[in-house]
């Protein structure tokens, strides 16, 4: 072992997939006791690089050195044995098993073929205490909150004595307060000499936590930097390759009369509990109302009720321009001027196997514009699709490409194009830029602003606080199904909204 060598060195890593070069000559290094952030758009090659490190992919070229010595890691077991831990973005937990069982999985038991959960639990308690990661070892994982599940993931890695820990977008699912707690834990881990790889595209978090930053673009390293020498705009530029406006310009628009009026709205959720609890809400013409909240606090159900995908409990009123939407089916709601950009864009927003042009007319294919006596008018459809692809800058080989082969950002542009062509009076956009590259997000934000100027009443539901604050005129914060406060975005700070999201009101 070489004492001066960094903990991890990846040199000249190249990985090719049919038709794509996912990593090309990537150099990456982690020292003992530092947080090294890996920043990049979706598809920039971050996950591929980490999958190579974790033994899930074999690199075509390049070498990996741990503690100065060349290693060959060809499976997760090798990685664990080399003291590499990974906290995956989508938790790698077995929900039906207890915390202790999840931690013990894959480890040799002291009792041979029998499990040794008691001694595992004992060790988990020790780690919890040392690292400030409170969790009950005998609790079944499905009962745990998202924050607790993440602690279990970290404990899993520490239990295996990980010295190099990779955290893949660990903050995506956390409240701002939980993010702060996590950062404290991570800092403590670096103090004991561990090296961390932090993967994120939330720029303010990257600035707050990182010692060093490596930016990837199109599989190559596009820059190395440290937080003190770069602004968020600089980082975004390294990621995208051009200057990007992170917060949209928000011209003054005089808000008109209320278009959407909601009174006494309660909604039953999937589990039979009350997901939306007695909500009153007005959204005005020319206004963007942001809905902030930790995922699962009723935002999705609220959107689905307005869109007509879910029924409210008795006693509610939902009016659009003074006419009730209750008992009106989704088609008729659209005809009255409602557009909906759903949260799960591939499940609810588009049909993956359909071509771009088919998805662009998905809603209107029966109308006179695109069909006559039930037969589709392909000439008109092609013309329409080509125009929209052009106007919304959808990156696609042609309009007959299957939608599922586009990137997330471009799929979202297709859906936006379709929904906005209807010139909606009311637009509901759920997580409009989640998983969307920065360039496309900038574009989508501009389109939302354009709609606002045209007098559309818009609801933007987002877990990205920067987005909510940047876009909205007013921000409604949801907690446990209720709107616990509505604040003017001029007065809103991340901290204040974060507290409200955790249910704290003064």
């Amino acid at each position, binding site marked *: 072992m070489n004492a001066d060598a960094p903990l991890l060195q990846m040199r000249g890593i190249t990985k090719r997939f049919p038709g794509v070069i996912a990593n090309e000559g990537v150099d990456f290094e982690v020292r003992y006791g530092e947080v090294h952030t890996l920043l990049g758009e979706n598809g920039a090659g971050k996950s591929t690089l980490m*999958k190579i490190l*974790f033994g*899930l*992919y074999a690199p075509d070229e390049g070498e990996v050195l741990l503690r100065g010595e060349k290693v060959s890691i060809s*499976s*997760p*077991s090798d990685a*664990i044995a080399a003291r590499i831990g*990974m906290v*995956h973005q*989508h*938790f*790698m*937990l*077995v*929900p*039906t*098993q207890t915390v202790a*069982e*999840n931690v*013990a*999985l*894959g*480890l040799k*038991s002291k009792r041979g*073929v*029998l*499990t040794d959960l008691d001694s595992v639990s004992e060790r988990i308690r020790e780690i919890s205490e040392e690292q400030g990661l409170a969790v009950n070892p005998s609790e079944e994982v499905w009962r745990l909150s998202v924050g607790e599940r993440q602690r279990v993931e970290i404990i*899993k890695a520490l239990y295996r004595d990980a010295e190099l820990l990779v955290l893949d977008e660990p903050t995506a699912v956390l409240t701002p307060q939980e993010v702060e707690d996590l950062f404290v834990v991570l800092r403590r881990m670096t103090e004991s000499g561990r090296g961390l790889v932090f993967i994120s595209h939330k720029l303010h978090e990257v600035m707050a936590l990182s010692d060093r930053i490596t930016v990837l673009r199109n599989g190559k390293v596009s820059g190395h930097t440290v937080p003190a020498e770069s602004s968020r705009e600089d980082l975004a530029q390294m990621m995208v390759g051009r200057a990007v406006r992170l917060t949209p310009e928000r011209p003054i628009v005089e808000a008109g009369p209320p278009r959407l009026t909601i009174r006494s709205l309660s909604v039953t959720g999937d589990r039979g509990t009350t997901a939306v609890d007695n909500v009153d809400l007005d959204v005005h013409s020319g206004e963007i109302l942001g809905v902030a909240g930790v995922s699962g606090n009723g935002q999705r159900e609220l959107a689905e009720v307005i869109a007509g995908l879910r029924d409210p409990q008795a006693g509610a009123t939902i009016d659009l321009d003074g006419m009730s939407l209750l008992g009106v089916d989704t088609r008729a709601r659209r005809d009255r001027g409602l557009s909906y950009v759903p949260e799960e864009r591939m499940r609810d927003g588009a049909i993956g196997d359909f071509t771009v042009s088919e998805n662009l007319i998905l809603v209107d294919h029966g109308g006179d514009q695109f069909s006559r006596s039930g037969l589709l008018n392909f000439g008109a459809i092609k013309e329409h699709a080509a125009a929209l692809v052009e106007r919304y800058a959808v990156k696609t080989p042609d309009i007959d490409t299957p939608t599922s082969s586009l990137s997330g950002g471009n799929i979202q542009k297709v859906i936006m194009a379709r929904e906005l062509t209807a010139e909606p009076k009311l637009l509901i956009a759920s997580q409009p830029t989640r998983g969307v590259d920065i360039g496309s997000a900038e574009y989508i934000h501009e389109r939302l602003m354009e709609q606002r100027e045209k007098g559309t009443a818009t609801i933007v539901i987002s877990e990205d606080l920067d987005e909510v604050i940047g876009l909205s005129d007013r921000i409604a914060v949801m907690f446990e199904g209720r709107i616990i406060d509505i604040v003017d975005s001029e007065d809103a700070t991340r901290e204040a909204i974060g507290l409200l999201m955790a249910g704290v009101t003064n």
Partner: protein
Amino acid sequence: MSQFFTLSILVATLASGIRLAVPYLIAALGETIGQRSGVLNLGVDGVMLLSAFFTYWTVLETGNMWLATAVGLGVGLVMGLIYAVVTVFFHATQGISGIGIFLFGLGFSELMFRKQVGAPTPVDKIAEVDIPLLSKIPHIGELFFQHDLLIYFAFGLVPIVSFMLRKTTFGMNISAVGENPQAADSLGVSVAKTRFAAILLGNLLAGLAGATLALQLGLFQGNLTNGLGFIAVALVYFGAWRPTGVMVGALLYGMVQATVNQLKIQGSIPQSASDIAAMAPALLTIAALAVLAGRIKAPSALTRPFSRA
């Protein structure tokens, strides 16, 4: 009708119910192990038919029941190997490949029977073993302690399988790969090996279930199982993927069948309606599944082949 309720007939019916439940129980326990690991095997009935035939044929030729049981287990193992290779390594769609196994078992067992045996020839049935002292207790003895060894073994399997699934590292691996194979893989648990082992165990038990059927009846004919293996698959759902639940389902099934048989013997059910009465257990299963549906949760990765990336 009153005749049916005499104690001795009731005891005889219940004892017969326990006996009839056993092939279901063994097959369903095996299927439980497989499904807990995320692999659905619809071929159980086919494996049972093959193993029942070879078991029967071995008894016919050698008269050795232990050898015959071993042959039945061997058939299960071979079929398990085939199914495991196809589903684990080639990621075949489980529903379809299971039906393939069933059709193969159905056809091949009948073909072999016609070629090698021809006319139905009864052989000795497996003997009952009375447990000393206990079997002498009135009624209780007849009910529980005058059965063949395979029956005792089958019920002994329930706590064994239950213990294996809950208290061993192998059992923990099985439920991990059945619920979240990516998680298991990320911790170095081989999804392929675990599923392979679970499938082999499951098919071994399917083979034993077929052997039990042949040894208890002392007979073979084409489609001997008459869909028994499919019922066993349904019982896994009925029992919510737990060995004790599966046992309750199998017993319920055996009891209903025994009762229908008894009523037929007594003439309480007219001969003309006997086919309809024979459907009672199936209707019961459908009703039970309809009631239970939604309240029980299958292993999340059931029927989903696993591959990295």
